[in-house]
């Protein structure tokens, strides 16, 4: 009999084509144009870049900032993650979600909040905030949840019986050090690599706090002179670093898969008389990193006139943001689910590598590529509509939904699929009748995560939204030029509500999942 092309093969290639069109094509075009000058190969842009007096200091600043942020996040995030997963601390899930808040907001919110704190306390020389220290503080607050949550997940994931066996022989500190931590190490390291990558690509915070880094140079080259070649050349070191990070990640996680499943109840750290102390420390941390800057930010929002003006100014943007994010989340959920499903046996590492690379590419870089690729009279349908933004969201965040879906698939016994195959069910029927119903929670989680990420995204919103179609985070940034603080505060509050409602739902879904059926 002849070989027929199977439906799943076609769908897999379609999914990969989407990823390629949305993410790989623009990046490839940019790289090509940065070395292709007037019809021949030239490294001029790179030579100029390296000869620029500012390049090396900026690269140094970028790396320094990312390293410092990752270090701070590691020092705080790993212990808190372990405590959240393994101790009998009261209110720990409350603390965990509270600390997650900065991550679901556009990163510049915390920076803006701190600048309000500084303004309110009347410190006029704000050197400590505007510079390296402030950047590390803000970026650490924003990215800390990545480390905390992934440490939490990895530590919860450690086979409880191993810890119980260890507990018979020694006290909890030794068990944490010798069993829990080493077994959670891949997850923790992955989270640190992620923080490093996100911090090195971050644009809005360093530019707001006036700390010169490479993404700001790249953005300026682009925004201030639309010099694609030079902008790309400035972005390539970032892309290379991102690539390196993903390679490290791949090496770390070789032959390891995440299964968010815990066997046995495992270790419980008895805090006893330390309880008030640890709770106080976490309370202090929450106040310092979350409550203080955000309350300073929102303080001006509670006036009726400011709120009314905000809604008048940005009502349409709010609606747009929600709609764009919802559409993108649906696309991302579907794409991630299909990619995860089709690669759960084979090709998983390649897809992970591909999508994670796109996740690590700074949004500014991706945006420049997208604009370059689609800015032509032929493709106005994409260039002048939100489609461009959707492509950007899809490329940037499909890693998240793909990974979440994969993690979900590992919870579904393979035999359920095999039994369905033997019953004569086609691939599509198995997908819709077996996998989709069994993955409801995974799908909800993936959708919400994608929604939150798209909603909080700044660079794509700023650079690829169509005329008159700017989402809220972009509008807040453009209104910030000479806008009244109360107006900005109200806008930020609206934005926060739009992000925090889905976060609360996510928290509920995850909690429901934690209760064994």
């Amino acid at each position, binding site marked *: 009999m002849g070989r027929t092309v199977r439906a799943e093969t076609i769908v897999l290639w379609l999914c990969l084509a989407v990823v390629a069109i949305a993410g790989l094509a623009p990046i490839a075009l940019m790289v090509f144009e940065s070395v292709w000058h007037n019809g021949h190969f030239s490294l001029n842009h790179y030579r100029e870049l390296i000869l620029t007096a*500012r390049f090396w200091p900026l690269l140094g600043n970028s790396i320094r900032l990312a390293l410092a942020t990752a270090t701070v996040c590691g020092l705080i995030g790993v212990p808190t993650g372990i405590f959240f997963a393994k101790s009998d601390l009261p209110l720990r899930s409350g603390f965990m979600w509270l600390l997650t808040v900065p991550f679901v907001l556009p990163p510049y919110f915390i920076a803006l909040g701190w600048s309000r704190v500084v303004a309110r306390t009347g410190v*006029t020389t704000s050197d400590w905030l505007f510079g390296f220290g402030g950047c590390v503080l803000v970026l650490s607050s924003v990215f800390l949840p990545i480390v905390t949550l992934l440490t939490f997940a990895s530590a919860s994931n450690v086979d409880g019986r191993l810890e119980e066996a260890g507990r018979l022989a020694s006290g909890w500190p030794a068990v944490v050090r010798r069993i829990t931590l080493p077994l959670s190490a891949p997850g923790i390291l992955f989270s640190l690599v992620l923080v490093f990558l996100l911090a090195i690509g971050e644009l809005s915070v360093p*530019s707001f706090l*006036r700390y010169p880094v490479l993404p*700001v140079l790249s*953005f*300026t080259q*682009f*925004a*201030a*002179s*639309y010099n*694609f070649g030079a902008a790309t050349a400035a972005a390539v070191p970032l892309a290379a670093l991102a690539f390196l990070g993903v390679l490290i990640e791949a090496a770390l996680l070789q032959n390891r898969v995440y299964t968010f499943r815990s066997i046995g109840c495992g270790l419980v750290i008895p805090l006893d008389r330390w309880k008030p102390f640890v709770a106080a420390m976490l309370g202090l941390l929450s106040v310092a990193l979350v409550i203080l800057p955000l309350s300073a930010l929102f303080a001006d929002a509670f006036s009726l006139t400011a709120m009314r003006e905000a809604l008048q*100014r940005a009502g349409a943007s709010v609606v747009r943001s929600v709609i764009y994010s919802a559409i993108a989340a649906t696309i991302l959920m579907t794409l991630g689910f299909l990619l995860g499903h089709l690669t759960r046996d084979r090709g998983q590492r390649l897809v992970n590598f591909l999508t994670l690379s796109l996740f690590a590419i700074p949004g500014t870089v991706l945006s420049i590529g997208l*604009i370059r690729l689609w*800015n*032509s*009279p*032929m*493709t*106005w*349908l994409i*260039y*002048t509509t939100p489609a461009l933004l959707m492509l950007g969201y899809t490329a940037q965040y499909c890693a998240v939904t793909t990974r979440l879906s994969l993690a979900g698939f590992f919870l579904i016994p393979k035999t359920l699929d095999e039994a369905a195959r033997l019953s004569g069910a086609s691939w599509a029927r198995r997908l819709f009748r077996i996998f989709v119903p069994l993955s409801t929670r995974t799908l909800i989680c993936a959708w919400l995560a994608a929604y939150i990420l798209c909603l909080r995204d700044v660079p794509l919103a*700023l650079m690829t939204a*169509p*005329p*008159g*179609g*700017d989402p809220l985070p*972009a*509008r807040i*940034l*453009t*209104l*910030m*030029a*000479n*806008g*009244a603080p109360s*107006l900005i505060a109200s806008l930020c509050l609206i934005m926060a509500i739009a992000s925090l409602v889905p976060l609360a739902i996510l928290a509920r879904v995850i909690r429901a999942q934690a209760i064994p059926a």
Partner: protein
Amino acid sequence: MRNSISFVVALALIAILTSCRPTSSRTVVVYVSEDQVFSEPILKDFERDTGTTVKSVFDTEESKSTGVMNRLIAEKDNAQADVYWANEPVRADALKQRGVSTPYVSPSAEGIADQFKDPDHYWTGFSARARLLLVNARSTIKPASVMAYTGPSAKGRAAIANPLFGTTTDYVAALFTIWGDDHARTFMNDIKKNGVKMTTSNGESTDFVATGQVDFSLVDSDDAVNLKKQGKPVEIVYPDQDPNGLGVLILPNAVALIKGGPHTENGKRLIDYLLSKETERKLAFADCAQIPLHSGVEIPPEIRRIEDIKTMRVSYADLARKMEEIQPFLKEWAGQ
């Protein structure tokens, strides 16, 4: 094959959609470098008055004044915008140089001095900011000219925003144009020797003056007026007003029609609207307190009429060229 049929249909659809781009007759696309806070209400009024939908792209603080301009340049062969609303003529002039804009003589432009218009009608100025001296009320120095920066009493007591950015670049370029390179270079080096404090922005300069960290600084009129309105202890000085004086640098907004834009007729209508006396009045009473360029427009008490100001005689096209030319000097001066 059903599949191949749907494929062909999809291809045909794509072809149709890409070939005939719908141009709605009641839409206008405008790219805006003027602060969104001030420009958007005007555009909303235009929507309300004419029933035309305005689709706008605004600049952020970071990409200030250059982001959308460069987007216009990048879209030259695939124009998306009909109108560019620049916050200073230099940007509008750059578009003219690159063939992005097209001439348009608006009937509303009548009454605006030729000094504030492109001689070939590629752009027209309206509602302006001025570069003024902001002086702390308790200060013992009462500067009447920018020359005060080099005076001994100003040693370490004056501020200026980083000349690499924003309106300070315009000002320094204006000095170079009027005085000639050598003179201007000497002046800049002198004020540096005199211990001038370089701030990151005009906003920060105004803060420095208000809190008494310095005695005076060159700032934009809008920032100065705002600070005064808030009751801060500051005084506004229109510098160099003697008959032979240098004059005040006026930086109007400028509006240009984009070549090959999708809704050119609506674009012209929007330009007429922006250049009207009514728009100038609104911008004068808004927080930006911009100076109307038409005579006879009602103004708030904090600002002066354009005819009561001795303005710097400078061609904005020359200014644009000079700004580019002195970049290396400014970088060196600012230590970057």
